[in-house]
């Protein structure tokens, strides 16, 4: 195709500057100011129009006003942060100049570039990391509040309504945090370098993805001030139809989150499939890249189901629609299906990137090739394929389609096969390796332990009779925390300590990091093992009060939660102090072979002066004279020597 139109990317630098003065003045603060003004103005207009006795639908007035204000906040924020500058200039035929592009990339802007609509993938990666850690902290504080409340039976700190709201907010904030905590920071920061690219395929879409997510956080926090969500994060109908206006904010937040995720997923897929370095066939592509790509595909096809469910919830609430209200022809099973068609793939959207990060670093610290690398790749692809066929196991006790319980039990049990394959790859890689027990490797061990327990207890729950007993019990809470927190979060922490030096140019404090690791692991297992026992004894989940016979288990869980909190604070301290004062890192402190370790730490604006050519296996450890890449102008022998020096460290 004889097409030379790349104006939206780079050719515009041949054109003369068309100004861009406004664009250069916009940042996060202008976004917040414009967003708040838009939200307040729209709220008062909407309240005037709809929350008055003359309105026939007065009952829906507050919902309509909240929805309008939340949407105005998002649009106002995006206008204020400069997200729409480029599209409107495209519309007007005034493409951005090279100077504009360099400004958007953050060149010469210091720390200020982190607060702008910056297109450099490394800036976006850092933005995602900070956002994920912040939201994770908020979710953690909510978790501590919940555990403190459950330390003793009875009314305690607060009543059931507040408790339900806290559980719902904890759930959704943690789900969003865990979805973004690996793909966001490392899919953006590391993946393009890992494949030998200078940036993502669509740098502006990359920034748009992040800045569409940013205003979602205040929206979720606003839920608490709008009456909360009594439904938990699943937002089941018909309770969601009856919930206070906090549910409107929740739904708008989810819709924006899905849009942000979709934009990000498309960008990651196109980047991974079209921008790999010369010689990087799929067989030579690092497993982390494959994991991020597979996750993006899964998210792209699964998350819109949640979006539709939330739009229908909003219409039920604000327009008296009849999607989930049985007396008007709706069905709550419709919502349950829409939700779980998204919900179970979403578990793998969380798990696969963390698992891929663990798979990525295990050969580095075992000094062995990735055992059965193709098996791992097949396992990831099989997880993606099977994950869309298992949703109804979440609905075994709902009464929906009992005849399908058998097939869904079978598909759910089948999914343990690719999971087991990945486990086999990890164990096989460690087996008889020259183990180099640095902090990332500790997290690999932690991941294996926690995820093994989470996975095996999941097989119990896939069994219909067992699920009938356990579905409403605390056992399920313990199971999914073992997978999502013990597996995915530990994997995400491993990714932080592994790639920290590449992002910051400084080494992570391994001493405090090790204390943090053991503290978290002990606290985590104490907390959730006690929940398993309480659950098996019959304690229901999602309850603000409980029978005193479960007191000891709850006290142990609460004590364990405080230990986790101490570990998390230690990790946070290690992260911040290392970022500020950690020892300067070399380009390749782990002696790894993937491409990100061939560039300085932190990498320069465009990563590579000359793009590398991939010549071999990314995990060829222990194989003499194997390197993954060559660089023009540097003899291969010298590169082998440099790599060997890294190996010896």
């Amino acid at each position, binding site marked *: 195709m*004889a097409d*030379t*139109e790349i104006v939206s990317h780079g050719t515009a630098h041949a054109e003369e500057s068309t100004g861009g003065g406004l664009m250069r003045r916009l940042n996060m603060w202008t976004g917040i100011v414009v967003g708040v003004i838009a939200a307040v103005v729209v709220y008062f207009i909407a309240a005037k129009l709809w929350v008055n006795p003359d309105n026939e639908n007065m009952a829906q007035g507050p919902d309509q006003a909240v929805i309008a204000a939340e949407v105005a906040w998002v649009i106002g924020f995006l206008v204020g942060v400069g997200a729409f500058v480029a599209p409107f200039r495209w519309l007007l035929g005034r493409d951005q100049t090279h100077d504009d592009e360099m400004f958007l990339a953050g060149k010469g802007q210091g720390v200020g570039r982190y607060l702008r609509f910056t297109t450099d993938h490394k800036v976006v990666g850092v933005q995602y990391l900070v956002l994920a850690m912040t939201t994770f902290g908020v979710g953690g504080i909510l978790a501590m509040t919940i555990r403190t409340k459950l330390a003793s039976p009875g009314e305690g700190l607060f009543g059931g309504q507040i408790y339900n709201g806290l559980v719902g907010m904890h759930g959704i904030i943690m789900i969003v945090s865990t979805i973004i905590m690996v793909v966001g920071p490392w899919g953006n920061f590391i993946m393009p370098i890992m494949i030998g690219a200078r940036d993502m395929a669509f740098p502006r879409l990359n920034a748009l993805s992040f800045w569409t997510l940013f205003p979602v956080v205040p929206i979720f926090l606003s839920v608490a001030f709008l009456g909360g969500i009594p439904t938990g994060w699943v937002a089941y109908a018909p309770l969601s139809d009856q919930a206070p206006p906090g549910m409107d904010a929740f739904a708008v937040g989810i819709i924006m989150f899905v849009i942000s995720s979709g934009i990000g997923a498309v960008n990651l897929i196109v980047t991974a499939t079209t921008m790999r370095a010369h010689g990087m066939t799929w067989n030579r592509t690092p497993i982390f890249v494959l994991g991020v790509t597979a996750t993006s595909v899964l998210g792209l*096809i699964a998350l819109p189901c949640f979006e539709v469910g939330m739009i229908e919830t909003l219409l039920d609430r604000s327009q008296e*629609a009849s999607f989930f209200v049985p007396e008007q*022809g*709706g069905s709550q099973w419709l919502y349950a299906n829409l939700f779980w068609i998204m919900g179970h793939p979403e578990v793998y959207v969380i798990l696969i990137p963390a698992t891929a990060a663990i798979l990525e670093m295990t050969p580095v610290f075992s000094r062995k090739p990735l055992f059965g690398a193709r098996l791992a790749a097949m396992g990831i692809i099989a997880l993606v394929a099977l994950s869309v066929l298992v949703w109804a196991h979440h609905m075994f006790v709902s009464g929906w389609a009992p005849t399908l319980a058998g097939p869904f039990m079978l598909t759910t049990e089948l999914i343990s096969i690719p999971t087991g394959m990945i486990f086999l790859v990890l164990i096989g890689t460690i087996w008889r390796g020259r183990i180099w027990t640095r902090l990332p490797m500790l997290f690999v061990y932690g991941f294996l332990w926690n995820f093994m327990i989470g996975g095996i207890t999941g097989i119990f729950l896939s069994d219909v009779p067992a699920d009938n007993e356990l579905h409403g019990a605390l056992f399920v809470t313990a199971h999914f925390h073992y997978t999502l927190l013990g597996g995915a979060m530990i994997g995400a922490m491993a990714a932080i300590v592994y790639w920290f030096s590449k992002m910051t140019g400084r080494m992570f404090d391994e001493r405090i990091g090790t204390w943090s690791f053991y503290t978290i692991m002990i606290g985590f297992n104490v907390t959730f093992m006690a929940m398993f026992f309480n659950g098996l004894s019959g304690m229901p989940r999602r309850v603000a009060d409980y029978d005193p016979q479960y007191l000891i288990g709850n006290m142990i869980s609460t004590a364990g939660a405080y230990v986790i909190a101490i570990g998390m604070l230690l990790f946070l301290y290690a992260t911040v102090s290392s970022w500020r004062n950690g020892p300067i890192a070399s380009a390749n402190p782990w002696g790894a072979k993937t491409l990100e370790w061939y560039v300085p730490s932190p990498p320069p604006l465009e990563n590579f002066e000359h793009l590398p050519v991939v010549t071999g296996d990314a995990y060829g450890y222990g194989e003499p004279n194997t390197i993954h890449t060559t660089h023009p102008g540097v003899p291969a022998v010298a590169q082998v020597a440099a790599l060997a020096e890294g190996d010896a460290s």
Partner: protein
Amino acid sequence: MSTIEHHSDAGHSPESHALPPELVAHQQRRSMILFIIADAVYFACILLTYFYLRALNVDGMWFGPDAKVADAWLIWLIAGVTVLSAIAYRSGEMGIRANSRSRFQTGTLVAVLLVVAAIGLTIYQMMTWPILMSDGSYASTFILMTGTQLVHLFILLFIGIGIWNRGNKGKFDDGKYNHVTVVGYFWYWLALVAILGGLTSLLV
């Protein structure tokens, strides 16, 4: 090695680092296809809603006592106008491929005007519809389908005006028309959705 010389990011690279145009074109086409796949999942969920609630007919309220069937002629008129706009756009796209600027500008202008007409007709349809969201699940689902299509038509109008305007400014020629092709994918997809929506309306 030539690959090294030409492989590059585009967003903020100096000219020597610019990505090969054919790669950029390939990326843009692929991204649009992926967006359409996500949109297709969204549309499939709405169809699932329609047929699931229709099949269940909970409490006989699929078609509530106050509900009326939406005017089929208006539904098909809007679908027809949308399809015609896609045909006009395609004609414009073929024009730029053949380096016929006048055909391109005429085709895209007609396409944009037809989208404006489709938007106007859809708004008219929603303003005069004999049903409300609260008239049962048929009414709710059909109004949702219509509203969703309206939002998509507004997006199409934005990018359609952009294509037409950029064409006027001489941004496209027979060797440089990838944006026209990529936007075309979205245009044809919306025309297909309009037809599928019309067919769905036959199954009250």
